């Protein structure tokens, strides 16, 4: 066996050398002969050399084996030498095989051929070429094909490789050959079995049948089971090798188990149980990288279906403009022009026969290869218009049904955009109906005021009367004419339950009245009220000596009125320089402020009732003073001019804030009992809510009236209500809830429009007041009536 092995190797070597000589084939010219002989020699030498080398190698390799065998080997090799030389000769002179085959048939044929050639060679010793003349008349040597001997299994020489390149084999369909080998020889089409054979083959699959044809050879491609197995593994990205375990069990050489015979006797190093600093460092590095986002966590790759979303396809001819012909301009491929079949009068050969027509009709419209069956109309005018219409319709339908981007319409319920306001029904109680009408005044009622006990209403009108009414029954209990020629502009009760004093202003005089005879004026209260009014007389008597007002007239004159007034309870008057339009009390009832808008530097005066003292703290007001009010709890005073509202700290005598409601002409203001909010009514029909903590601009503007707003008022008795009175004869009631939480804004809900007052002389409702506890409000109308709303 070894001998055969060795022989084969040797031959292999020889043939391997052969291709070096073979290229000589391609050379033309006289040198070839010499070259050939030379090559023969070389091949010979090389053959022997190689043999010796081999033997030496074998010696080295088998050196350890038996000597006898070696000797035997040597002998054999020597015997073989002659054979090999002969074979070499045979090899060089053998005829070309009719075809290159891998199959067994071919091998058999080759074997036969070789035997024939061998015979021939021994018979004639003719040169191995023939001389012919080529097309030019030159001599041409045609050498015989070098035929490798039968048992030279040449693996290097790619036997029968088709050199036609990347050309479909179908090009050779009409030829007996299927291509050319490296030597330019035709590779003949393998003999194909008869139709019966292929049928048999198809019925009974031969072993390893794949149904494929080897494109290189044109023969059926047979794969053995092992090859298939390997292919399968390759397609699965597995190792093709058999029996390879990619996940072998781990052998724990170093485990916590104490081995009887440890691999190392060394004591366990510290690093085994001390956490590695280096690893910690690396981990921290990775952690840091993850935190910074340099390392992204693994996400399984998204299975991409057919289309890569990142792959953008551009339709470069989408909006193609006709351009001059240029090499860089690739025009859009043209649609094939209509052929004969599309003609309305096609040649008869394009017309379908009955069978084709039936076939066309029977197939589904989607499956037809042509949409249009050639029809002969004979003339264009005979083409029915309907088809055109239908075609147009279908095209439009195509366009219409073509998938487009679905645009979601913005579908918002307009109700949802409205602010969420509670329903007025939930905000009860608030005044809804007129419960009472007080009619007795001649001329406009300018002002109303509910007394601190909540049972009486005082009203002042243009007729100069102050009248007091029972709130619920509407009975007039008391009245007094203060002035014959001046209207009573403002009436207010002193804010104290211990006294019953009405302060009413007619012209430039404030009249302080104790309405004797009213049920609230019992002897105790009468006495207390008298004391309040009279206490200042002594003070005034003492004062003038020190600070005399010689050079200028006094800011106000406090005096006891005439007896006719005194008998009816008007016990004190205070006169300033110009007509008083507003009286506003400090909550304790000692201080009150009067505003006379035309008074210029004397416009706003703060009076001390207990001292009969008048001060003019705001000498230089910018703009006409309209109204003023004390802060309900702090020593802060609000003065409203036409455009602005200024708040002053009375104790520190500083200006705190200037609020700009944005109204053109402020008519009235009221401060929320909490002290942080302010409502402003203006002659330009606006009601403005100021959150003084929020901004100097109004938090909310309510413009619901048709005409100027005359009066605004907060409910002072704990109900979250406020109201305004307007020249359009209506009052509007609002819910205005202020939450203690600074983060939450006030809730303002319009509740009710109270109509009833009649407009008279472009004036509607002039005054307004709330009951101190109940949700009742009183309004003063220009029509001479007051109304109570419950």
């Amino acid at each position, binding site marked *: 066996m070894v001998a055969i092995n060795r022989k084969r190797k040797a031959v292999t070597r020889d043939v391997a050398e052969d291709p070096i000589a073979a290229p000589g084939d391609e050379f033309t010219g006289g040198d070839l002969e010499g070259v050939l002989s030379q090559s023969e020699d070389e091949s010979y030498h090389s053959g022997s050399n190689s043999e010796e080398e081999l033997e030496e190698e074998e010696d080295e390799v088998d050196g350890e084996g038996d000597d006898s065998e070696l000797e035997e080997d040597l002998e054999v090799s020597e015997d073989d030498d002659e054979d090999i030389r002969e074979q070499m000769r045979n090899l060089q002179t053998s005829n070309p095989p009719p075809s290159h085959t891998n199959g067994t048939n071919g091998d058999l044929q080759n074997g036969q051929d070789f035997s024939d050639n061998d015979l021939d060679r021994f018979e004639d010793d003719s040169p191995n070429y023939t001389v012919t003349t080529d097309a030019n008349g030159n001599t041409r040597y045609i050498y015989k094909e070098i035929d490798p001997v039968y048992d030279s299994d040449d693996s290097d020489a790619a036997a029968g490789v088709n050199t036609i390149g990347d050309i479909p084999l179908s090009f050779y369909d009409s030829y007996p050959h299927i291509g050319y080998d490296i030597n330019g020889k035709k590779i003949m089409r393998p003999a194909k079995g008869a139709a019966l054979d292929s049928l048999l083959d198809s019925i009974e699959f031969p072993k390893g049948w794949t149904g494929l044809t080897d494109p290189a050879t044109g023969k059926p491609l047979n794969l053995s089971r092992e090859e298939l197995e390997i292919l399968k593994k390759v397609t699965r990205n597995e190792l093709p090798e058999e029996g390879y375990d990619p996940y072998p069990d781990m052998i724990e050489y170093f485990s916590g188990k104490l081995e009887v015979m440890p691999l190392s006797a060394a004591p366990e190093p510290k690093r085994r149980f001390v956490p590695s600093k280096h690893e910690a460092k690396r981990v921290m590095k990775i952690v840091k990288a993850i935190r910074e986002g340099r390392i992204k966590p693994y996400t399984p790759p998204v299975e991409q279906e057919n289309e890569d979303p990142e792959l953008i396809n551009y339709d470069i001819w989408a909006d193609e403009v006709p351009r001059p012909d240029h090499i860089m301009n690739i025009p859009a491929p043209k649609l094939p022009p209509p052929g004969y079949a599309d003609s309305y009068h096609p040649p008869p050969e394009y017309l379908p026969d009955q069978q084709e027509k039936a076939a066309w009709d029977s197939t589904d419209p989607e499956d037809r290869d042509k949409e249009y069956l050639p029809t002969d109309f004979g003339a264009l005018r005979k083409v029915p218009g309907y088809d055109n219409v239908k075609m147009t319709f279908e095209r439009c339908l195509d366009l219409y049904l073509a998938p487009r981007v679905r645009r979601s319409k913005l579908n918002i319920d307009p109700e949802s955009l409205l602010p969420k306001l509670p329903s007025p029904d939930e905000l009860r109680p608030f005044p809804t109906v007129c419960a009472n009408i007080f009619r007795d005044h001649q001329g406009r009622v300018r002002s109303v005021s509910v007394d601190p*006990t*909540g049972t009486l209403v005082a009203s002042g009108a243009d007729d100069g009367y102050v009248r007091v009414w029972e709130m619920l029954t509407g009975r007039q209990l008391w009245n007094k004419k203060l002035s014959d020629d001046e209207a009573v502009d403002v009436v207010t009760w002193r804010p104290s339950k211990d006294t019953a004093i009405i302060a009413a202003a007619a012209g430039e005089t404030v009249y302080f009245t104790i309405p004797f005879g009213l049920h609230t004026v019992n*002897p*105790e209260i009468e006495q207390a009220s008298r004391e309040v009014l009279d206490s200042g007389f002594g003070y005034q008597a003492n004062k003038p000596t020190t600070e005399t007002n010689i050079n200028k007239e006094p800011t106000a004159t406090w005096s006891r009125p005439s007896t006719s007034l005194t008998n009816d309870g008007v016990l004190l008057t205070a006169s300033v320089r110009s007509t008083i339009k507003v009286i506003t009390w400090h909550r304790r009832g000692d201080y009150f402020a009067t505003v006379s808008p035309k008074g210029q530097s004397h416009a706003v005066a703060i009076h001390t009732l207990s001292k009969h003292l008048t001060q003019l703290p705001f000498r230089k007001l910018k703009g006409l003073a309209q109204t003023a009010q004390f802060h309900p709890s702090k020593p802060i005073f609000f003065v409203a001019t036409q455009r602005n509202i200024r708040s002053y700290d009375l104790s520190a005598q500083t200006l705190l804030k200037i609020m700009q409601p944005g109204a053109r002409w402020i008519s009235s203001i009221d401060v929320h009992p909490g002290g942080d909010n302010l409502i402003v009514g203006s002659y330009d029909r606006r009601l403005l809510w100021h959150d003084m903590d929020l901004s100097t601009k109004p938090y909310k503007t309510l413009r619901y009236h048709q005409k100027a707003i005359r009066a605004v008022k907060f409910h002072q008795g704990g109900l979250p209500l406020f109201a305004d009175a307007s020249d359009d004869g209506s009052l509007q009631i609002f819910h205005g809830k202020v939450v203690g939480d600074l983060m939450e804004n006030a809730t303002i809900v319009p509740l009710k429009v109270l109509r009833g007052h009649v407009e008279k002389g472009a004036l509607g409702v002039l005054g307004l007041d709330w009951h101190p*506890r109940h949700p009742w409000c009183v309004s003063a109308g220009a029509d001479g009536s007051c109304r109570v709303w419950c």
Partner: protein
Amino acid sequence: MELDAPNESEKTSQVRIKLTTRDSDVQLLETAPILVSTALRRYALSTLVNNLLESEKPVPFEFLINGQFLRTSIDEFLTANGISAERTLTVEYVRALIPPVHISSYEHDDWVSSVNVLATDSRARILSSSYDGLLRIWNTTNTDLLATSPSARDNGHTAAVKAVKWLTEKKIASSGDDRTIRIWNYVEDEGSAAAITPVLELYGHKMTVGDIAIHTPTSQILSASADGRVGLWSTSKTTAPTAPTSLLPTASSSANKRRKLAKADNKQVSQRGPLSMLDGHTDVVSSTIFKHDDPTVGYSASWDHSVRTWDLTTSRLVDTRTTLHPLLSLTEMPQVSLLATGTTARHITLLDPRASSSKVSALTLRGHANAVSSLAVDPKSQFGLLSGSHDGSCRVWDIRSVRSVASGGGGGDGGQVGESVYVIYREGVEGVKQRAVGGEGVKVFGVDWREGVGIVSAGEDKRVQVNRPEGKQ
């Protein structure tokens, strides 16, 4: 049953009804459902019930189905209310309230603030108080003015009188804006001479005394004042304590001056103070009553939304029932243990004052268009109620006529709501003005309802008006 036969010929459908009543004296013996024609009306049903009762003298009945009075035929009623005629209908029959008609009016010089009727076997007298500070006594038979109280100069009320009550046949109590309660003697001769003479002036309230309640056997008076207190007074000179000097008119300089201007030879009327003053209300006390069977218990209604129960012997507050609205009037319906109170929110709330009841409001009676200023109970029916309101109308209610409503709507407490049976408008006032905005000129301030006299109401139209069911004395 007898009525079925003639109706069957008219091919009308029939309905099964079950007759019930809450009046024990007209109870039916057999209570099984009977089949009647749906074409029947109130009168036919009333005849049927009278037949079933076998009463000698027919009693007119009204019929309540689901809390509503039957005013049409049964068929129309069923259709209007969507009730199936196949169900057994529970029909409650009640003694019919005959529509009250105007009998007479008593003209006054000023607004009449309250009215009280004395009805004894021998005579019936109407006592009225007016805003001019005078009390007047009227004869009901011939609408004559029998007597007028003395004026302020002669120890009369110095301001409007707000409430007046008969203490006995010969004694009158009144209160008013002059913060006093005055006791008067009334002497009436057989002939014409009748006189009211002041007996006692009771001082103690600091504001108007809007309402008084009397208890004749103990000679005690409860007063409701705008100063937020309820006063308990004695009507006898001997038992009453002395008056607080600071509240006497002598303490007031203005009143003194007026007094000096008045006659100097006026003899002084005794002045007394309260037995006790009950503090607790935070607002005007508008009305007060004694418990009907217990003079030691008083109830008071106030603008502070509450009805309070007082133990008068210890002057202690026993219970507080808080409603949603200021209250103006109060009366007790003894047999059904309810307090009726009129509110400024235009309705009447019925409360159960007993400690066992958990609900604040038992029933709400809606219909008035303005504050309900006074209340009176039906002398004949335990379920009848009369109310006078500032909207210028008096309404008669039957609290059996109720229906349930969902809560909300109108600020009520929900629950059961009743509707009025009859509405009495002011007589002699034009129809347009009867429903004047704010009850202007027609407000009713006081009502009373006595058997034999009828419904007596007083108001802003300066009249006392008597209405009575027709055909009955």
